[in-house]
C-alpha cells in the first residue's frame, strides 16, 4: 500500500538504478541473476530488490549484496602522532605487510575495518605522521578496502554527473553545471511546449522531461534515422511522460519551413528501405516475432549499453527478414498488415508533429549537439513564439561566435549572451579547508537569448535595432556588478 502511494521509493526489478561508490557512478538495469561489475567488484543485484533507494550495501562472498548498517564511528582515543614530516622518509618500506599478506587477509574474509587496523599496526611511519596525515592515510585505506556501494535513484543530477565522468564524449563534454544553466535559462517547467535538438544520448532530453514533470509537450528533432534516447530511459519516467514526447526528422525541417512538407518519404528506417526479395526460409517467422518483441521492448528496456546496439540488432534482423519476406504466405500476410499498420501509425504521428511545429508557438528551444549550431538555430527558431527563451550549447566557443553574429543579422532575438561557467570543488575539514587540487578545465559554452516579434521593416530600421542591441563599445565597458 505504502509503496503504491509513493511510487519509486523502493528498488524494483526492471528499474534503472545507479550504483554509487564515493564519487563514482554507474547506471545498471536491475535484473535478477545478472552479474554486474562495478569498481572491480562482481555481484548480483537480487538482494537489493525491495530495499529503499539510498541503501548502502557491502559485497559479501559469492557476490551477494548485504545491506550495511550505519556504523558508529570508532571513537578515536587520542592516538600517538607526530608534529611534522621532517623525519619521515618515503622509502617504500614502511608497510611491513606484503601484497600476499593482505590478499591472505582478504581471502580469510576479514572485514575492511580490520585490514586497515592491520595496515596501521604494521606501518613503521604511522605513529610519526601528524594527526592530519593519519586521517588522510585512514581515509585512503578506507576507500580501497571498505568497499561499500550505495544504490541511488537516477535523477538529472546523478546521471549528468555520471555521464560527464564516464562518457563525456557521448554528451559533447557537457558538464553538469552547464546543463543546469540551460535548464534554468530556458525556463524549462511544467506546461511548456519545448523543441529540443540534442545529440547527448538523450541526457538533455531526459533532464528537460524531468523538469516538465510530464506536463506540456516536447518535440525532439533528430538527425539521421531516429532519436537516440539511451540516457532518457535511465531516468525511469512513467509511461505517461512519453505520451507527449514527439520526434521530427531534421531532414524535413527545410520543407516544413518552406511549406513544402510531405509525409510520403520518411527517413530511412530498417523496415522501409530494404526492397522485398523472393526467397524461402523456414526460420523466418521466428525472426519476425523476435523483431516485433525487440521493437516493443526497446522503449521499456533501460540500457547502459547504447540504444544503438539494439537498433543495430533490429536493423540486422530486419535486413535478413525482408529478404525472406514472401516465403510463408499465411504467416506473412499478418506480418505485412502489422508492418503497414505501424508504418501508418508512424506517418500519422509525423503529420501530427509537423502540425505542432507549424503552429510556430513553441515556448522555447534547446540545442546541444555535435552539429554546428548556426543552421540549427536559424531554422528551428522559426517554430518558437515571441518572448520565449532559447539556449544553445556548444563544446567550442567559436561556432557560437558565428551563431551570435548570424542571429544579430537575422534579427528577432534580444538579450543575447555568450557565457560559460566555472566550477570548483572544495575540501572542507577543520583547519584543512581549501579548494580541491583538480578541477574541470572546461564545461562547454552557452549562447542564450529571447525571441521577439519579427517585423517586416526596412533595412535601416533593422540596423537601428541591431545598434540598440549592440554591445557597448569597448571604451565604454562599464563595471557590471552583478552580471551573473
Amino acid at each position: 500500500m505504502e509503496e503504491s502511494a509513493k511510487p519509486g521509493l523502493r528498488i524494483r526489478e526492471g528499474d534503472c538504478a545507479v550504483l554509487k561508490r564515493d564519487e563514482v557512478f554507474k547506471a545498471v538495469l536491475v535484473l535478477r541473476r545478472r552479474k554486474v561489475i562495478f569498481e572491480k567488484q562482481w555481484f548480483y543485484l537480487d538482494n537489493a530488490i525491495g530495499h529503499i533507494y539510498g541503501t548502502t550495501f557491502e559485497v559479501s562472498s559469492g557476490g551477494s549484496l548485504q545491506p550495511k548498517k550505519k556504523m558508529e564511528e570508532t571513537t578515536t582515543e587520542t592516538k600517538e602522532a607526530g608534529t611534522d614530516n621532517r623525519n619521515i622518509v618515503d622509502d617504500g618500506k614502511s608497510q611491513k605487510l606484503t601484497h600476499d599478506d593482505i590478499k591472505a587477509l582478504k581471502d580469510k574474509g576479514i572485514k575492511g575495518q580490520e585490514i586497515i587496523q592491520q595496515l596501521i599496526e604494521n606501518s613503521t611511519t604511522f605513529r610519526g605522521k601528524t594527526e592530519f596525515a593519519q586521517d588522510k592515510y585512514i581515509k585512503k585505506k578506507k576507500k580501497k578496502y571498505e568497499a561499500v556501494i550505495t544504490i541511488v535513484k537516477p535523477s538529472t543530477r546523478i546521471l549528468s554527473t555520471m555521464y560527464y565522468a564516464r562518457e563525456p564524449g557521448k554528451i559533447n563534454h557537457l558538464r553538469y553545471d552547464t546543463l543546469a544553466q540551460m535548464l534554468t535559462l530556458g525556463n524549462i517547467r511544467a506546461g511548456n511546449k519545448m523543441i529540443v535538438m540534442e545529440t547527448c544520448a538523450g541526457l538533455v532530453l531526459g533532464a528537460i522531461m524531468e523538469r516538465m514533470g510530464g506536463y506540456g509537450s516536447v518535440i525532439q528533432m533528430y538527425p539521421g534515422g531516429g532519436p537516440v534516447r539511451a540516457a532518457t530511459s535511465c531516468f525511469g519516467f512513467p509511461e505517461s511522460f512519453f505520451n507527449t514526447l514527439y520526434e521530427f526528422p531534421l531532414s524535413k525541417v527545410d520543407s516544413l519551413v518552406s511549406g513544402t512538407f510531405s509525409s510520403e518519404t520518411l527517413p530511412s528506417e530498417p523496415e522501409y528501405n530494404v526492397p522485398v526479395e523472393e526467397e524461402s526460409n523456414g526460420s523466418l517467422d521466428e525472426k519476425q516475432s523476435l523483431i516485433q518483441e525487440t521493437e516493443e521492448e526497446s522503449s521499456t528496456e533501460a540500457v547502459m549499453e547504447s540504444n544503438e546496439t539494439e537498433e543495430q540488432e533490429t536493423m540486422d534482423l530486419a535486413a535478413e527478414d525482408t529478404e525472406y519476406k514472401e516465403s510463408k504466405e499465411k504467416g506473412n500476410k499478418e506480418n505485412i498488415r502489422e508492418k503497414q499498420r505501424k508504418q501508418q501509425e508512424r506517418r500519422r504521428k509525423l503529420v501530427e508533429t509537423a502540425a505542432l511545429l507549424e503552429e510556430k508557438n513553441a515556448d522555447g528551444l534547446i540545442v546541444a549537439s555535435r552539429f554546428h549550431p548556426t543552421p540549427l538555430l536559424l531554422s528551428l527558431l522559426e517554430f518558437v513564439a515571441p518572448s520565449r527563451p532559447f539556449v544553445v550549447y556548444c563544446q567550442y566557443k567559436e561556432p557560437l561566435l558565428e551563431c551570435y553574429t548570424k542571429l544579430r543579422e537575422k534579427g528577432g532575438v534580444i538579450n543575447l549572451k555568450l557565457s560559460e561557467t566555472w566550477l570548483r570543488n572544495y575540501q572542507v575539514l577543520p583547519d584543512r579547508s581549501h579548494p580541491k587540487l583538480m578541477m574541470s578545465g572546461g564545461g562547454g559554452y552557452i549562447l542564450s537569448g529571447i525571441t521577439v516579434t519579427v517585423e517586416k521593416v526596412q533595412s535601416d530600421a533593422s540596423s537601428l535595432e541591431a545598434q540598440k542591441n549592440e554591445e557597448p563599445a569597448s571604451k565604454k565597458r562599464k563595471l557590471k556588478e552583478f552580471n551573473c
Partner: protein
Amino acid sequence: MSFVDYGDTIKDGDTAIVFLGHESMFPVKVQHGSKTQTKYGVIRHSSDLIGKRYGSKVTCSKGGWVFILHPTPELWTMNLPHRTQILYSTDISLITMMLELKPGSIVCESGTGSGSLSHAIIRTVAPTGHLYTVEFHQQRAEKAKEEFQEHKVEHLVTVKNQDVCKNGFGVSNVADAVFLDIPSPWEAIGHAKSALKIEGGRICSFSPCIEQVQRTCLAMEEHGFTEINTLEILLRVYNVRTISLQIPDLGKAAEDNSSTGFDSSNQSNQGGLYGILQQGTAQFKSGVPLKEMVGHTGYLTFATKSLF
C-alpha cells in the same frame, strides 16, 4: 500571464518586463489608465500594452521603441527591487539541479530575502509542488507575500515570519529539499533535518564565508547527513566582437631570400590565418571577456539525508 505559465497577450494586472536595450530593462505592473516613463517617451498601458502580444515592439511617445517581454523568474531576478543581496541565476541553476527540484517537489527555504530564489523554486515545483519559505524580518516577509500574490503564485507558496534557527520551518517530514541562506546555518541544520521527509531528501546551504561553511559541514555530519559536498560556481561572460589588429610594419626585406620577415609578399599567406586582411590590419571575431567579473558569491554546500 503568470510566473508559472506562459500567456500570449498582455493583460491588465500582469507584470511585464520592458526591454530598452542591452542590459537595460525594468519590470512594470500593467494597469488600465497607467503610464510608464522611459527615456524614449511615455508608454500608455491601455493603448500600448493591453492586448498586445508579448514580445512585441512598442513605440513610445518620443519615437523610440522598446520590447515588452513575458516575465520569467530569470528576468525577475535581474530586475527585482533588492531588499537584500540576492542570488543570481548562475547559483540558482546549480541549486535547482543539485536539490533535484521538479514539478511536485516540496521545498523549505530560509531566508526569503528579496524572493529571487523563491520565484525560481516556485516555477520549478509548479503545479503540484509547494514552497515553505521563512523570513525573520517582518517587512521583508510582508513584501514577499505581496509579490507572490501580485505574481499569481500565492497558491504555491507559504511565507512564515519567524526565526528558522529557533522555530524551524513550521512543517515536519514533508520536504524533498531544504535551502538555507542565513548567517548561522549550522543552527538550523537540526530543523532542516526534521523538515525533510523521513525517507530522505537533499539540503543546500549557501554561505559567503568559509568559516560558516566549516561549521555547517560539521553540523551536517553530526546530524547524519551524507554526500556532503561544497562547491562554487562562477559565470564568465563573453562579448562578441570583431577585432582588428594592426599589422606592424617591419620594413622591406632585402633582395635575397635569407631574411624571413613579415613583409608584404607574405601578407597574403597571413590572410589565411586571420581572415580578411585589409590595409595592414588583420580582422577576426573574438569572444572577449569582460574587464571585471563576479569572482565570488558564496560557497554552496550540498548534502543528502537518507535513512542510512
